[in-house]
């Protein structure tokens, strides 16, 4: 887990920046005003999560983290689709 070199520091700083962006997006989740605004914000947070996990994989030299990023990306997509389907036909998720 050691962090060495300029590149790794830059990658970690970028990851922290993306998490800061996610903190800003929480404002949109709280403020709304519609359900879809919140889903858009959570979708953006999920894609930020994928980027953060990929950056951490490179910075900490743990390529296994990319698998987590892949799983997160797929399930984030699933979540967005499920919620948008749910808001149209209530209860029609499964």
């Amino acid at each position, binding site marked *: *887990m050691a962090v060495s070199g300029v590149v790794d520091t830059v990658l970690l700083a970028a990851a*922290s920046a993306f998490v800061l962006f996610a903190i800003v997006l929480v404002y949109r989740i709280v403020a709304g005003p519609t359900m879809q605004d919140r889903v858009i*914000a959570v979708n953006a947070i999920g894609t930020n999560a994928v980027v953060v*996990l990929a950056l*951490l994989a490179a910075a900490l030299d743990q390529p296994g983290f990319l698998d*987590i990023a892949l799983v997160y990306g797929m399930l984030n997509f699933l979540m967005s689709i499920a919620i948008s389907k749910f808001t149209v036909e209530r209860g029609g998720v499964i």
Partner: protein
Amino acid sequence: MTTVTTALAVVLTFAVLAALAAILLRDVLNAIIAFGAFSFGISVAWVLLAAPDVALTEAAVGAGITTVLFLVTIAKTVRPAGERLLETVEWRSVAVVAVLVGALLTTVRSLPAVGAADAPVATSRITEYYLQNAYPETGVENVVTAVLAAYRGFDTLGEATVVIAAGVAVVLVLRQEAYV
């Protein structure tokens, strides 16, 4: 290591904010959406604490499956009346929770540091035994998997049985409605 600590602090700040949003939002669907954001913070925190398998579970369960299960559940409920965005806060309950959290936080100081070499889990004879004998005895390369699936195989089998029984029960309950 300090950059990792900084990143962890930012991630945990995000997780706390998302959790507050999930608690305070009045409409349950909004709370579910905020909870999906919360799972991101927890997942990245596990990655930063060098527990990628737990992070993988959190990513799969927190972002995907929990959301869908919650959606299926609240399909049976109605939305709260009124336009109010946030839940009203019951301050007496908050006081009780604050006292409890404060009491629990006093024990944190006696915990060993993260990754400390003299932590009981690192110096224990059992840890040493598993690290030395897990691969020769079970043939599984990951020690955690070896403990879960080989040394405690019957325990895991029982857990899996409970989970499958719960899943079958949920499907049976849901099938009585028009969700098939």
